[in-house]
């Protein structure tokens, strides 16, 4: 852990990304404390108040939306829902997908292939359409959005996990474990999962952004999260109607989504590199552990 932190400090871009994400998470957590309920009420006088003016207090520095609510306050409140949805989706699909993939990767049995074929089928359905159908049936609320997005994201994790499992299970320490009489569960918990996780985590970081995008696209198509819940995706989708008259109403949430995606991607890439001694050695000016030295310096 300390080692990882040390490596993080060495990579400036990753450090900035991590701090940014941390800040956003903190803001999301304390949102109810700092945002006054009155800021979330409509105030039609301040409808589409232009940004970068301080006449109405610093909450209105990013302008007002179509109901005259503070853009900034809404961004802060939306952070909570957005992050909660993205986080829940990504972690659920990570857990489920990884479990499916690892189990399928551990076994050569027919059902292992069958599971992966089913995942392929799931992947061949355009995820938006799947989402639409389900959201029509059940109606949109954050838990349903999480559920449907989870289903559409599972294949990615399952495939990645299976690929990892197929590779890891051939490694000698797994054989050594088998020689000791280890059960499949032991192999899964002690060897497969811990080794596959770094890769899965970096995939998760990239997925985080994709989930936010998917969520906002659902909202654009009119089937995403509904008011009074608010997410950045909802704000972009609401704001895009006023592109010509109040450009800021879609710009800020769009920028926030893109910047979070950027930060998550940078962090995900960094995480992958930081966890892989080979990649780490390759990426210039990044840290290498001492034991790897001899490998690089000699004939390997």
């Amino acid at each position: 852990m300390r080692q990882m932190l040390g490596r993080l400090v060495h990579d400036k871009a990753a450090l900035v990304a991590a701090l940014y994400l941390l800040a956003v998470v903190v803001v999301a957590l304390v949102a109810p404390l700092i945002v006054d309920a009155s800021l979330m009420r409509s105030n039609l006088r301040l409808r589409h108040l232009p940004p970068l003016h301080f006449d109405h207090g610093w909450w209105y520095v990013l302008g007002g939306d179509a109901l005259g609510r503070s853009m900034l306050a809404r961004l802060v409140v939306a952070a909570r829902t957005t992050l909660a949805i993205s986080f829940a989706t990504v972690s659920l699909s990570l857990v489920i997908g990884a479990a499916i993939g690892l189990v399928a990767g551990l076994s050569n049995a027919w059902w292992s292939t069958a599971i992966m074929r089913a995942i392929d089928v799931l992947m061949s359905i355009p995820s938006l359409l799947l989402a639409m159908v389900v959201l029509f049936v059940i109606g949109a609320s954050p838990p349903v959005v999480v559920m449907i997005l989870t289903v559409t994201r599972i294949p990615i994790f399952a495939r990645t996990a299976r690929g990892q499992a197929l590779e890891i299970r051939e490694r000698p320490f797994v054989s050594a474990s088998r020689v000791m009489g280890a059960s499949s569960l032991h192999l899964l918990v002690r060897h497969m999962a811990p080794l596959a996780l770094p890769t899965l985590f970096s995939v998760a970081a990239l997925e985080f952004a994709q989930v936010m995008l998917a969520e906002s696209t659902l909202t654009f198509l009119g089937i995403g999260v509904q008011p009074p819940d608010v997410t950045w995706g909802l704000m972009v989708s609401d704001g895009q109607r006023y592109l010509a008259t109040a450009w800021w109403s879609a710009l800020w949430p769009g920028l926030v989504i893109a910047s979070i995606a950027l930060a998550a991607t940078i962090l995900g890439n960094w995480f992958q590199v930081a966890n892989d001694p080979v990649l780490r050695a390759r990426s210039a000016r990044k840290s290498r552990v001492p034991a790897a030295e001899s490998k690089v310096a000699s004939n390997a």
Partner: protein
Amino acid sequence: MANRLRTRQALGATLLASAVVLGFGAPALAQQNDAITVVQEQEPDTLDPCELTKKNVGMVIRENIVETVTEINQQTGKVDPRLAESWSTIDDTTWRFKLRPGVKFHDGKPLNAAAFIQAFKRMMDPNLSCSNRVLYFEGMGVDLTAVDDLTVDVKTPQPSPIMPVLMSMVGIESPATDAHTLVRNPVGTGPYRLVEWASGRSITTERNPDYWGEKPQVGKVTYVFREEPAVRAAMVANGEADISPVIAPQDATNKDTDHSYLNSETVRLRFDIGKPPLDDIRVREAINYALDRQAMLGTVFSASWQPAKNMVMPTINGYNDAVPFWPYDPDKARALIAEARAAGVPVDNEILLIVNNGSPGGTEAPTVMIEMLKDAGLNVRLQILESAEFYKFFYKPFGDGQPANILFESHDNNSGDAGFTLVGKYASWGGTSKLNDAEVDSEIKRGLAATDPERGEIFRDVFKKVHDMAVDAVLYHQTTDTRIGPRITYTPTAATNQELQISQIQFK
């Protein structure tokens, strides 16, 4: 080698296909002198004349390709002749229509009584499921007989005082039209005839040189379809289109090109009057007092909308101007709710505010309304539903398990008569009515059978009654924003919601 060759061939074929998709059969960007482009929201699913009251279909064919028997004059609200020159009553249950002589269909066949009857029968064929039949004529038992080549008698079992109005919904197509399927190539008598329907892309029509009436200025029309309102507005601004009958209010920013018109639609909040707490009149009144109708104009709703007190436009027969507006009085609303609470009404029960997605005002209008209702002390939650789900709440039969709800709905009556509205919205048998009141029912029935001026009197009474019962919260008469390009002049009317008569368009 063989493989490589095959790959190359495949690539070539793909490129060729792409070229076909890309380049050919495309309307030129630059406009011909007398050609215009109309950009609409949705492509029609069919162009069948018997569907011409469907908005998408009507915008293209109604009075352009296919003409109706009669036509409503939007200025006067009266029925004007179109394919029928005149009409009169023979007895209580029979109307006689005289058709215009010398009119020919685009395929050269003459317009006559037989063609009228054939077109009407085709419309009434249950296997075709024409919306006109279901909407206006189902169960009426209309019977048509030819008196002579240009005269038709229309008989109904019951007296039907508004038959000339109904005939404005009936288009007459060529007798050669396929009787068994809905057609995509309508052949009518109108000033324009269909040239091409490139599915998914555009519909093209051109001037009918043999038109019986005045020769219109526009020679060629291309209809294209864009779902995004901002894109429609941009197309007219960019000169890619000449008119967009509907643009979003927030895009209607250019006074030179953008015109708003009352589109004959009225919006209201329908109360689930049978379920607590909405079964209590104090609660219903409180809702009406709690809504700041003025503040929502120009903010969440278009500034050109007009506050309404009846569910029909003032030009409609039966409109009661004596009904008062509900004033904005939040204190009174709170007091009424408190009073109801004291009387044991479960005012804290959750009420759903049900909104169809894509309805005017977006998500913002209901958000504001909920804030207002919460201020009054009610517990309201927003539920935005996609059409099919919305209809489950909107139409009868209402499911048993449906929670108490307030439904935001929009109603269109451009028939000139309040009868449709009163039946649909307030009669116990009305398809979207929540009201079940014996007195209102019998009044409506009496009114439907009556002719003017008694008919109008009775309808005005009903409107007063439902207002006093606070059956709903009537909100606004809607307007539509139209963007008209600089090359042409056109004056939108309420009918522009249903039809766009190209012959009314003139070049500057």
